[in-house]
C-alpha cells in the first residue's frame, strides 16, 4: 500500500516536473553481484572505499555490457583475495554473468576500472586498479580476455584507485594515468579509535587517510607495441604523494590537447596542463580548481566533466566528504575556473552527504547536463551518533534549470531515496532506448541499476566514434552539435566518476528538436570533421576520415 502511494506521488511529481523516473531494476535484469569490501565495522581504511564499475561493449554487438569491480576482505586477501571483477553480457536488456567464459577470473582486491582499446584492434580492453598489483586485461576479440599486465608493464603494486586512458601526446595510442592512494599495511596501521586522527565526532573510526603516507600517481606512455613505459617523472607529473581518487583526461583549455584532472582525498586537487610536448605543468592552484572558493582543500572523491552552462567549455564537478559541499568549477576559459557551487544551488544540500560516483549527463534529454551523485558514509559508526548523517545515504539528482542553477529532484524517483552506502557510478543507455541509465556499486551490498523511464520523451542523438589515425576508441574526441540554433559539446572520456567508466558513446539530448543541423568532431589527433544535417533518435557510428554511416 505504501509503495503504491509512493509510486503515485512520484508519478505526480513526474507530471509536475517532467523529469524522468529512475527505477532500480538490478535484480530484475540479473545484475546481482554481492560486493565484498571488508567487514561491516570498517576497521581499516582499505575496507571503506568500495569499488567502481564500467560500461563497455566488449563483444561489439551494439549493446553495452557491464563490468563490476569487486574488493576483498583482509582475511581473504591473505589467501589471495576474491574475484576482482564480474562481467555481465547484455543480451538485449538481460545480463548474463560471463566472467569465467571471458577468462576474467582473477583474485585480488579490486578497486576501479577504466576502458579503452589500448592496442587499436577494435575491441575495448580493461584496466583494473587494485589494492595490490593492478591488472590489464586485453580483449582478444573472441569474447575472451587475457591478462597482459606483466608484458604491458602496468602492474603497479601500490594502492591504485582511479584510472583513465587518454592520448596525451596524440600519437594514436592511448596512454594511462593511475591515481594512487595511501600506503596501507594492516600490521602497522593503528586500529580504530587509537588516536585523534582515528575518531569522527567522538566515535572510534578507522585511521586514515590523514596520518598515513600517500602514494604518488603514475603516468604510463603507450609504446604502441603492447607495452607501456612509466613516464611520470619525464612528463612532469609531480604528485606530492596526495591521496588520489577520481581522475580524468579532458581538454580543459580547449587547445586540442588532453589535460589531466585528479580529485584528491583530504588534499588539494591537481590539474596537469598539457604542454603539447609530452610534458605537463601542474596548474591546480592558479586555475582555481585545487581548492574550494574559500581556499580550502576538500576531500575529492569523484569527478565529472561537462559543459553545464553551454559556453562551449568543459566544467568540472567534484564530489567531496560529508559536512563539506560538492564543488562545481565553472570554466571561464584560459584555464581559469570559478567555484560556482553556491550560486548554482549545489551547496547546502550536499553537506549532509558523502559523495562518490558522479556524472554530468543530460538525463531528461532537454539539452542541459544534469548532475547525479552516489552517496554513502565511510564510517558505519555514524549511525550511533546524532549528527545528521547516516551510513546509508540517498542519491542526489540535480536537474539543470538552464540558468546556471540546479534543482535537487531525486524525490521524483523513490528508488533513489533508498539509503545505501554507495560508491562507484557509471552511466550508459544500456537498453538503447534513447535515455541514459545509471549503475551504482554499493559497498557490501548488491548493485543498484537505475533505468531511466521517461528521459526519451525528448529527442536525442548518440555517436559512436572510431578513430583511424587517432586512437581507435576516439578517447579525447570533442563532439559539438548544433540543433535549432543551440550548440552543445561533449567528449569521449575514459575514467572519471569514482573508480568507474561511462559508456564511450556520446549522448546528447535535443529537447523537441528532431534533427541535428551540424555535427563537428575534433578527433584526438586535432583534425576536425564536420557534417550534417542528421536525423535524431539513433546512435550514429562515425569513422575518422569517413562520412557518417
Amino acid at each position, binding site marked *: 500500500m505504501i509503495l503504491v502511494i509512493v509510486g503515485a506521488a512520484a508519478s505526480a511529481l513526474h507530471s509536475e516536473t517532467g523529469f524522468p523516473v529512475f527505477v532500480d531494476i538490478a535484480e530484475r535484469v540479473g545484475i546481482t553481484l554481492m560486493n565484498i569490501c571488508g567487514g561491516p565495522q570498517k576497521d581499516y581504511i582499505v575496507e571503506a572505499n568500495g569499488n567502481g564499475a564500467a560500461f563497455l561493449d566488449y563483444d561489439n554487438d551494439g549493446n553495452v555490457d557491464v563490468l563490476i569491480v569487486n574488493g576483498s576482505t583482509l582475511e581473504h586477501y591473505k589467501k589471495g583475495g576474491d574475484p576482482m571483477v564480474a562481467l555481465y553480457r547484455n543480451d538485449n536488456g538481460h545480463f548474463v554473468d560471463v566472467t569465467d567464459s571471458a577468462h576474467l577470473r582473477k583474485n585480488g582486491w579490486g578497486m576501479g576500472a577504466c576502458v579503452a582499446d589500448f592496442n587499436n584492434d577494435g575491441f575495448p580492453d580493461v584496466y583494473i586498479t587494485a589494492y595490490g598489483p593492478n591488472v590489464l586485461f586485453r580483449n582478444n576479440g573472441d569474447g575472451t580476455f587475457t591478462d597482459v599486465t606483466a608484458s604491458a608493464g602496468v602492474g603497479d603494486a601500490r594502492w591504485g584507485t582511479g584510472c583513465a586512458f587518454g592520448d596525451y601526446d596524440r600519437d594514436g595510442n592511448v596512454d594511462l594515468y593511475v591515481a594512487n592512494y595511501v600506503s596501507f599495511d594492516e600490521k602497522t596501521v593503528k586500529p580504530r*579509535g*587509537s588516536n585523534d586522527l582515528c575518531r569522527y565526532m567522538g566515535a572510534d573510526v578507522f585511521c586514515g587517510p590523514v596520518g598515513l603516507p600517500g602514494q604518488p600517481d603514475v603516468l604510463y606512455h603507450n609504446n604502441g607495441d603492447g607495452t607501456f613505459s612509466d613516464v611520470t617523472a619525464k612528463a612532469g607529473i609531480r604528485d606530492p604523494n596526495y591521496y588520489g581518487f577520481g581522475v580524468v583526461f579532458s581538454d580543459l583549455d580547449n587547445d586540442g590537447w588532453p589535460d589531466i584532472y585528479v580529485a584528491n582525498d583530504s588534499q588539494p586537487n591537481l590539474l596537469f596542463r598539457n604542454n603539447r610536448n609530452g610534458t605537463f605543468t601542474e596548474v591546480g592552484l592558479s586555475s582555481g580548481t585545487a581548492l574550494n572558493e574559500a*581556499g580550502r582543500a576538500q576531500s575529492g572523491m569523484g569527478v565529472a566533466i561537462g559543459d553545464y552552462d553551454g559556453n562551449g567549455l568543459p566544467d568540472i564537478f567534484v564530489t567531496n566528504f560529508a559536512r563539506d559541499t560538492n564543488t562545481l568549477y565553472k570554466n*571561464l576559459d584560459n584555464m581559469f575556473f570559478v567555484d560556482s557551487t553556491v550560486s548554482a*544551488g549545489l551547496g547546502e544540500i550536499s*553537506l549532509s552527504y558523502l559523495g562518490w560516483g558522479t556524472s554530468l549527463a543530460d538525463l531528461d534529454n532537454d539539452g542541459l547536463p544534469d548532475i547525479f551523485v552516489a552517496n554513502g558514509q565511510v564510517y558505519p559508526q555514524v549511525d550511533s551518533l546524532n549528527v545528521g548523517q547516516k551510513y546509508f545515504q540517498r542519491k542526489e539528482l540535480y536537474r539543470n534549470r538552464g540558468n546556471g542553477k540546479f534543482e535537487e529532484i531525486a524525490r521524483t524517483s523513490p528508488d533513489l531515496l533508498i539509503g545505501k552506502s554507495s560508491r562507484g557510478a557509471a552511466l550508459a543507455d544500456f537498453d538503447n532506448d534513447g535515455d541514459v541509465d545509471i549503475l551504482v556499486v554499493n559497498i557490501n551490498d548488491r548493485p543498484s541499476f537505475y533505468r531511466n523511464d521517461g528521459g526519451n520523451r525528448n529527442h536525442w542523438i548518440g555517436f559512436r566514434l572510431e578513430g583511424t589515425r587517432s586512437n581507435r576508441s576516439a578517447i579525447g574526441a570533442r563532439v559539438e552539435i548544433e540543433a535549432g540554433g543551440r550548440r552543445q559539446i561533449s567528449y569521449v572520456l575514459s575514467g572519471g566518476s569514482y573508480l568507474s567508466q561511462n559508456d564511450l558513446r556520446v549522448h546528447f539530448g535535443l529537447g523537441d528538436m528532431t534533427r541535428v543541423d551540424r555535427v563537428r568532431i575534433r578527433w584526438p589527433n586535432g583534425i576536425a570533421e564536420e557534417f550534417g544535417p542528421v536525423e535524431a533518435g539513433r546512435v550514429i557510428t562515425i569513422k575518422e576520415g569517413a562520412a557518417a554511416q
Partner: protein
Amino acid sequence: MGRFRHLVIGFCILATILAPAVHAQTRQPNATLAAGLAELNRGNVFEAIRTFKEIVRVEPSSPAASFYLSGLYTGMGRYGTAYSYLKTAMKDNPAQGAYDHQLGLIRRNVGCRPEALSAFQQALKAGMGKDEASVWRQIGDLQVDLLDWDKALDAYQNVLRLQPNDASAHLAIGRFYLDRNDPQRAVSELRTALESAPPPDGVYSSLGRAYRALGDLESAVSILQKGVERNPADQDSLYMLGQVLLALGRGKDGKRTMDEYQSLRDRLSRTNSLFESAIERAQSGELDRSEGLLKEALRIAPRYAPALQALGAVQLNRGNTQGALEMLKQAQASNPLDSETYFDMGTAYLRSGRLSEAMDMTLRARTLDEEDPRYQTLLGEIYSKMNKTAESRAAFDLGRELQSRPGYRPADPYASEMRHRDDSATVKTICGYDADK
C-alpha cells in the same frame, strides 16, 4: 607564544566572569586562589597552574581551583585531565552553568557535538549570567557543525540580542548568508564584524568572498589586500586575492599573488614534512639524520616549538647537552606548558651537574603531568645525586607505581605533541557514551 596569549586572554575573561559563581560554592580561603588568578592575569599560566595545584594538593576537593585547572588543561588540549578536574569541581554542587559550559567546551574539543550541545543547553538552563552570549555562540557553532542552519542562525541572533556588537556572531551570520547565496546580506553582516576592534579572524577573506559573489571584484580586491596587509600569513585572503585578480584579468598581479600563496603553503607543508620525517628517523634510531632534518625545518620556521623540543631531545640523546639546552630553552619560550621540554631540560642539567636547575625543571614537568613515571624516576636520580636518600627512594617508588598502573604506555620522547592525546575510553567517558559506542 601566540596560542598561549589566546589562552591567557580567554581565561582572564573567564576568571572575571565566572569567579563569583564558583567562589560562592567554595569553602576555600581565597588568598591563594586570588594569587593564582593574579598569575593568570599577568599571563603566567605555568605559575597559575602551580598555584591552583597547590590548592588542590591541600584540599583535593577544592571546586574553584579544580575548575580553573580544568579550563587551563582544556586550553592545553589535554581534555582527559581537564575533564577529571571538572568532575572534581562538580562533585559538591554540579548544578552550575559554568561547569556545564566547561563540559560543553571539553566535549566539543573531543568531537562529540550532540553531547556538547546538550551541555551548553544545560548551562543556559542553570544560568550563565553575563556570559550567556558566549554559550549561545558555542551553540551556534555546534549547530553549524550539526548542519542545522536555522537553529544556528537563531543561536547567533541570540548572541546579538545580548551583545549587539559581537563581531564573531556577525561574522558567523555573514558566512551563513554567503553559503545561502545571499551575498548582499552577507556583506552587511561582515562589514559590521569588520568594524570591531580587533576584527575577528577570517572576516577579510569572507568579505572578499561576499564581494566576489556580488560581482564587485574591485571591492573584493580592496578588502582582501587590507586583510593580507594586516596579516601576511592570512592564507585564505591571499588565495582569494589571487583568484579575484586573475578573474579581473590582472594576470601578472594574480600570478604573483598565487605564487606568494603557493610559497606560503609550501613553507608550511615542507616544515611539516621535515618534522614528520625527523621524528620517524629519531624513532628508528637515526639521530644524526633526524638532527639534520629538524635543523632544516627550523630554518624555515625558527620558532616551531615541537621541532625545537624534538631537536633538544635528539641532541640530548646524542650527548650534546649544551646544544640541547639551547634548543630546549627556545622551545620553552615558545611553549611554556610542555612538560616534556622541562623533563629534557631537567635531564640536561643533571648531566651538566647543575642539580638545582635540574630539580626545578623536573618539578615543573611533574607539575604539568603528575602521572609520567619518567619524571619521578628523574627526580629520584636528582635526589640521589643530592644525597637525599629518602626522597630519592620515594620518587623511584612512585615512578614504579605509576609505571605499573593499567593502561600505562611508555611515552615517545620525540613526539611530545602526540603524548597527551586522549585514548578512546577517555573520550567515551567525556562524551558520556556507553562503552560499546
